[in-house]
């Protein structure tokens, strides 16, 4: 056997199995979902009668804009909240903790909550914010309120705080990584040239951590816009988010074509965010030379 042939044989010996697997259980399902989004629903079945109706329904029915708009709004609020929580923590870890051992310990402490069951982390907010919950009983004990309040749970605020809590470690990780890469000499130089603390931060630190911030926003936004569990647990009447509508169409409503069309929209939102943040990062890198 010549070398070239041997390489080809080697490649297929290695790869035919995985290729078959990935094709069958990953590519086919995605393509199938795309195809079904053009099918026609004839309750309780869907028939391969290709048309744009499902997408037209999404565009034509203002109810779906509302859901879509609210999902994007909540996902953005979650990302902003996670950012506000993450940056000071990451900055403190990267620049203010002197002992490298302590820094490693605190960093691991920050990402450990990621490995605590997602469901339990969402559920614990229900026990904190509920009318019989910890926050209420605490406020009553302090004497601030006289009777349990129902304003904390089952609204957008509860969804944002719960998801921000769950996804904050995803924001801390990339921001910390980008802060760590900044050569301290740059900040010293800025100081030596007379820039104050804030000026150094705005002109040097913040721009240099943009890639990390973008990555963090991409993670948190994608995760929260696709989350349908937290909204059900703590969102109450506001839990009708795009991911929940998809889940309903595949479950109770059994309208797969519409559900597929919505998943395709969701897929493009997430892929769009990922591509946009990639582009922004590249542009940023070019501008900074």
């Amino acid at each position, binding site marked *: 056997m010549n070398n070239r042939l041997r390489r080809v044989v080697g490649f297929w010996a290695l790869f035919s199995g995985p290729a078959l697997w990935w094709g069958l259980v990953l590519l086919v399902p995605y393509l199938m979902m795309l195809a079904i989004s053009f099918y026609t629903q004839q309750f309780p079945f869907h028939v391969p009668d290709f048309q744009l109706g499902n997408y037209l329904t999404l565009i034509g029915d203002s109810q779906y804009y509302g859901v879509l708009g609210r999902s994007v709004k909540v996902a953005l609020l979650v990302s902003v909240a996670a950012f506000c929580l993450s940056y000071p*923590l990451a900055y403190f870890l990267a620049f203010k903790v002197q002992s490298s051992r302590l820094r490693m310990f605190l960093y691991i402490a920050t990402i450990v909550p990621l490995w605590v069951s997602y469901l339990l982390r969402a559920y614990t907010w229900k026990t904190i914010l509920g009318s019989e919950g910890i926050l209420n009983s605490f406020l009553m004990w302090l004497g601030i309120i006289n009777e349990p309040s129902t304003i904390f749970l089952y609204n957008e605020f509860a969804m944002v705080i719960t998801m921000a809590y769950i996804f904050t470690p995803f924001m801390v990780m990339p921001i910390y990584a980008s802060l760590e890469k900044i050569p301290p000499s740059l900040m010293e130089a800025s100081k030596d040239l007379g820039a104050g603390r804030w000026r150094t931060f705005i002109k040097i630190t913040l721009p240099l951590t943009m890639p990390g911030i973008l990555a963090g926003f991409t993670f948190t936004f994608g995760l929260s816009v696709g989350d349908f569990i937290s909204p059900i647990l703590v969102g109450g009447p506001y839990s009708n988010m795009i991911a929940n509508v998809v889940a309903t169409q*595949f479950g109770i409503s059994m309208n797969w074509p519409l559900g597929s069309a919505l998943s395709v929209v969701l897929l493009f939102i997430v892929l769009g965010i990922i591509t946009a943040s990639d582009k922004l990062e590249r542009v940023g890198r070019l501008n900074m030379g």
Partner: protein
Amino acid sequence: MAVLTAEGTTGATRRRRPFDISNSTLAVAAACVLAFLYVPIATLMVFSFNSNPVTKLPLTEFTFAWYEKALSNPDLMAAVWNSVVVGLCAVCICIAIGVPTALALDRYNFPGKTVFRRLVILPITLPGLITGVSMLTMFRSAGIELSLLTVIIGHGTALTAIVVTNVFARLQRFDRRIEEASADLGARPLQTFWYVTLPNIKSALIGSSLISFTLSFDEIPVTFFLTGRDNTLPMYIWSVIRRGITPEINAIGTIIVGISIILILVSVFIMHEDNQRAGPVRK
């Protein structure tokens, strides 16, 4: 870090305020964020030992009752067992598919490689919901009944990306000349893989398997759509907490939290140690 050291050493000559407001504000803010991350987890743990069936303050008596109740609940234990089985089978799939995929990506160029690489990591890039409903579509259209097997295939597909990325990263640091030497010395490809390649990717493999198992143990969005009559642990917890709050869940939650943290710390430690030893990226 070095900024602080510089400030610290030159602090005497550079007139500094005795109490630096900005630094302490930052420390307080960081402490608050860490507290925010841990108070809910601590809540879960504390109330798993509290006798009041309602999760509210003040605390009442200390008790193990919820643990006893949880551990003697047959539905819950069946769900735990299902999760263990699903997790182990999913990890086997992850390894069986992930290792050859990573090897192929590392050493061969083939048409559509970039697209393929993107496709493989899609399940960890896109919301789990999308992978879940698309696989549901496929199984149902093929007339396959939903069961633990479909859940296993779902987890295997969604989590293999973790093994692929970790093993691929490890292969990039691995000196291929060792493999060539092994081949020159007459080893067959499988022998070279077993005696040379495998020991080198072992830690990445163990680490990513542990991570995959932990994630499978916690997986909801994919499981939600692919599960049949048998519940995994998260699906059982989900069905209970939708009805109401029970301290039994706090107890089982505390146990899971403990076990997952141990598994993850072990895997982080294994991979970290190994990366330190392996040196810089080759390519």
